[in-house]
């Protein structure tokens, strides 16, 4: 056995030991009496993290307490409940619910529908490992939905899943090549990100490994701060030129525009429509990130719950609401959040952090430092990234999707709606929970 073979064997043995113990922990913790005392935060309380692990293990919504439905942030989705129909008027469990949404509402270009009202958010190679990207792509393929490359390039291994992978074009233009633009059925222009609106992507030096740098055509171990904004875009017309450029290379692609949530997000939505977008992706300020200044996460731009109705109503008043698909992201944690986002006016949502939690994320916020994530998620460290086997990861994400689909169907049955599209903009089916009552006590499960 050569030294290299011995090293590989050793690494496999160590990886096997730790993956076995980790997977055992993911299964055991949701069933223990109390969560780990240092786990969780107001957005993602420990019980919600554990409930997500449970759903990722079983593929079904948890029985019992409603910890899997909300967080404890005291605002936004956590301040909203549903107005259920009386028991006798709700649909029975045998009633089939249609969760399909169209991604192209224009009268031209390919019709693309997804069977569940969500797809996966952009997470770049570098911010996450290739294994994680593959796991998400496999799950997207299984469910007939999509995942996005993020801005770090397009690893070769993803081409097998290209019909379910959105090619993201961001300001750093990392990995944007003719081949990757041609591969995507959807091309996503990332103007801004909710967690760091008005700032470019951040990849700190320790995570810019040799392979990441090669993919991004940059220098290893040097931090990458993507520019902001697109240096060739000063107007809607400039953006239209970008769209034309992509459509010249890939005429069949649908165009998604990812923006953050400034005061004039409604105007941005209209501008995106007139620039030719099929999908408007609004990313709220409490969204996920692999690295962002803390001041930006908390303070710049509005949370998604406020942006959705603002955009929805303005598009309605402009008479173009049914010509563009609005996808919302930035703090969608549960099936209940998905339903609330749609009731506020979105067509569907985009999931990021919840998929990582399904694969074991504890929300410890150490993604950016050193070798990256100790669970092998937000890392490209060759040893740590082996903790995620793409097949296992895909199963976890897929199970979460299954649990979300079941829960969302239950919500629609209780509201008496046969199709998820019927929920869009139905704020009359929501209730605003009183401030003087603890939110966790008033969520109707």
């Amino acid at each position: 056995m050569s030294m290299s073979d011995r090293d590989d064997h050793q690494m496999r043995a160590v990886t096997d030991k730790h993956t076995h113990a980790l997977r055992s922990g993911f299964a055991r913790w949701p069933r223990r009496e109390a969560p780990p005392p240092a786990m969780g935060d107001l957005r993602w309380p420990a019980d919600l993290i554990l409930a997500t692990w449970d759903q990722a293990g079983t593929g079904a919504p948890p029985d019992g307490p409603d910890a899997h439905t909300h967080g404890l942030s005291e605002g936004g989705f956590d301040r909203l409940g549903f107005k259920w129909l009386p028991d006798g008027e709700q649909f029975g469990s045998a009633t089939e619910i249609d969760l399909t949404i169209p991604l192209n509402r224009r009268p031209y270009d390919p019709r693309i529908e997804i069977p569940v009202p969500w797809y996966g958010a952009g997470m770049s190679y570098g911010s996450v490992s290739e294994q994680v990207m593959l796991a998400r792509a496999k799950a997207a393929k299984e469910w007939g939905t999509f995942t996005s490359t993020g801005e770090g390039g397009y690893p070769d291994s993803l081409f097998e899943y290209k019909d379910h992978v959105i090619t993201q074009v961001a300001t750093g233009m990392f990995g944007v090549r003719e081949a990757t633009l041609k591969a995507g059925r959807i091309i996503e222009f990332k103007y801004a990100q909710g967690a760091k609106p008005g700032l470019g992507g951040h990849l700190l030096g320790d995570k810019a490994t040799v392979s990441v740098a090669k993919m991004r055509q940059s220098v290893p171990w040097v931090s990458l701060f993507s520019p902001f904004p697109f240096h060739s875009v000063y107007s809607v017309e400039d953006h239209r030129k970008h769209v034309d450029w992509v459509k010249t290379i890939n005429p069949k692609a649908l165009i998604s525009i990812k923006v953050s949530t400034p005061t004039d997000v409604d105007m941005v939505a209209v501008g995106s429509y007139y620039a030719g977008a099929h999908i408007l992706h609004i990313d709220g300020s409490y969204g996920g990130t692999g690295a962002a200044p803390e001041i930006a996460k908390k303070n710049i731009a509005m949370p998604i719950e406020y942006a959705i109705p603002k955009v929805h109503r303005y598009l309605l008043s402009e008479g173009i609401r049914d010509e563009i698909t609005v996808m919302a992201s930035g703090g969608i944690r549960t099936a209940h959040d998905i339903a609330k986002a749609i009731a506020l006016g979105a067509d569907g949502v985009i999931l990021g952090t919840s998929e990582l939690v399904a694969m074991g994320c504890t929300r410890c916020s150490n993604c950016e430092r050193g070798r990256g994530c100790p669970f092998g998620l937000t890392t490209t460290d060759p040893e740590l990234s082996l903790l995620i086997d793409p097949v296992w990861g895909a199963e976890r994400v897929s199970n979460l999707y299954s649990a979300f689909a079941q829960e969302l169907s239950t919500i629609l049955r209780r509201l008496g709606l046969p199709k998820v599209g019927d929920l869009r903009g139905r704020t009359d089916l929501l209730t605003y929970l009183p401030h003087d009552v603890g939110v966790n006590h008033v969520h109707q499960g």
Partner: protein
Amino acid sequence: MTYKRYHIPVAPAPNSAPHPRRFNVNVSKIGLASLLVREIFHYRGDMSTVLSRPCMYGVFSGPVGGFAPRPDNCVGCLRCTVQYPDMVRVEPNSDRLELGDSYFTPDNVDTVLYEAATGRVPVKGAGYRGRYGGPGWDGMWTDMSEIVRPTRDGIHGREFISTQIDIGERPAWLSFDEEGGLDGDPWQVIRLPLPMLFDRLPDSLLSGGWEAALLDAAGSLETLAIVPWKALREMSSAPSALVPLVAPAEIDHLLEAAWRPRMVEIEGWDAGAFARLGAAWPECVVAVRLPFGDPIDEPLASGCRTLHFVADYHGRTSSGFVLESIREVHDALVARGVREQTTLIGSGGLTAAEHVPKAIIAGLDAVALDTPLLIALQGRFRGECRTAESCKVEMPNVDRAWAKQRLINLMGSWRDQMLEILGAMGIREVRRLRGEVGRAMFQADLEKEAFGEIEGYVHV
């Protein structure tokens, strides 16, 4: 005039006094011994695999691994406890609850200590973890622009965003004589490269030598430090950063000093004291320090154009919270048609980098910082730290150079964070941020607009 780019010389200045770690790590020694025995058999003596530890931060990296963990290294990732639920327990360290007070929270203290130690902008992974909006500063978001940037050169490159402000009276317009020269008296302004001053120390720290560190740092930063008169009596010369704070009764003593400061602040409104000081030292900017809510008409009528309003250390004012009080006084100055000629400085309740741009958006020209300076120097509050008169702070025994660097680092970090906000908004100088509430979003307004039609909605 030669252009010189403003630069804050940050440098590492690690904590000098012990700081409570974030987590405690407890390992069951019996459980660990039993696991080791099982693994030795399972892995047939492959000790590299057996001894491979579930921590990449070195908590179990000591010579006896988990038998003597190193909790100071723990970052709370929880991998060890996830892998071994029955054997490892990671808990938040309850000693941290003693940091700061009910307003200056332990997390807030940690952030300021990081900023003072490194001079860097705190950057972390994962999304926001806190409460949704909230009272006070937390119920306010700043705007961003999808396509507008002050310049296109990048915030970490050549992009220039000015944080320069003027303190003092600015004329509403310029007039010129027949020769084309400026007509009338020259106006007195002090030009500062950043909108952050140092406010007076609490009474319990006066004359403890801490003023020297503040003045050192303020001088290096080219800003100002406000120092009560009783801490200055023995001073033989005035550093350029010095702003004496005097009670009206102390003005005679001040005028006897052998030195002349660029700016003086009078405690409370006293028309006679203001007139006397202005007449004796016409080249000096004379500011008046008032609690938020005090009337402004008389000072304005007397020609006072530099107002320093103060809330308590928790941001409380006679009418509520400092954010609203700033908006009130700013609006009052606008209504009286003197906003452009007046400098508005504010203090109290500003404990995080984000509070500075928010306070400026609400209407301040500059802030004068108080408790964050104490925390940066690793001061520990003893009880609630509410007012300069009552606040008790235990300060570590440190040297002056270290203290100076810590304050410089804090300002470097806070200025950089302000640049992040300004850059995201597409604003290229901080003076344009003042009073720009249209480029801010307030939770009460957003909530009403978004949720107002939803059953049960209550406007808060």
